């Protein structure tokens, strides 16, 4: 299963992650969080919080941050940061982003940063995010989406074998995600004109979800 191998890779890399890949994502994360407008009593779900790079950018005095990650190794690093920062508004849970351990309509914001393409079913991940987010909640995704520019698409194809080492693939098109999950994109932006990553800000409409017909098992 893809999740178990991803979990293993991240467990091993957790210590080195912040110094390498983590550096590259800081700016994007800071920027994305600034677009959330977190209010005092808001609940924020950080899906795939990893080592907690994002914890450096969430407000300390408002909102409650709930971090979820598949890797226990990553979460230990995240919890270390929570303690070092003296944060009282953050908690972490080990969990599978495709089977979230939360009740529906819980969160005011869901942040999905650099994680959507490392899971085996990105559509299901977004549907889970829609389920646990309140109607009208903001879902912010920072991710690489397949480029519509032919030159960049080729470059991505060339880079891909390296990226798959980190469980990163570049065959996910944003349009497919929108079509299959029914999310409503408010706006999207890149930090630079040529940036392989993109921040997409969405509103949770729940339009494509069949929440009424949920059976006994969440399978």
């Amino acid at each position: 299963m893809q999740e178990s191998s991803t979990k293993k890779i991240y467990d091993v890399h957790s210590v080195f992650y912040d110094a390498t890949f983590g550096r590259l994502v800081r700016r994007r994360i800071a920027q994305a969080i600034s677009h959330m407008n977190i209010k005092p009593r808001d609940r924020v779900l950080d899906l795939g919080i990893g080592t907690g790079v994002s914890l450096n950018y969430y407000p300390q005095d408002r909102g409650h941050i709930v971090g979820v990650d598949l890797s226990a190794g990553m979460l230990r690093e995240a919890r270390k940061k929570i303690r070092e920062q003296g944060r009282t508004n953050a908690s972490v849970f080990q969990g599978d982003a495709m089977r979230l351990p939360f009740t529906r309509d819980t969160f005011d914001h869901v942040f999905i940063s650099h994680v959507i393409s490392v899971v085996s079913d990105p559509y299901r991940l977004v549907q889970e995010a829609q389920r646990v987010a309140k109607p009208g909640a903001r879902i912010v995704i920072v991710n690489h989406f397949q480029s519509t520019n032919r030159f960049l698409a080729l470059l991505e194809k060339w880079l891909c074998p390296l990226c798959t080492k980190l469980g990163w693939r570049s065959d996910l098109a944003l349009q497919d995600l929108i079509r299959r999950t029914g999310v409503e994109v408010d706006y999207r932006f890149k930090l630079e004109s040529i940036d392989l990553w993109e921040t997409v800000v969405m509103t949770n409409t729940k339009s494509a979800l069949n929440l009424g017909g949920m059976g006994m098992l969440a399978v």
Partner: protein
Amino acid sequence: MSSTTPSHAIDPDLLEMLRCPLTHSPLRAEGDFLIAEVGGLAYPVRDGIPVMLIEEAKLPAGVESLEALKEKLGGK
């Protein structure tokens, strides 16, 4: 660092929003576990971090496998 340090009591607000990922039922805290009301899967709290993964949960007494539990629940 895998010693069994006692888990901190989980915040009631957080417990209220937590659900069993298999059955979506509420959970109750009992020692170092969070136990699902439906199905009875017991999710361990390790080093203070709740492990909400179905495969890592302890099966209720008398159930020999996850498959058997799913069958029992699905058959209702």
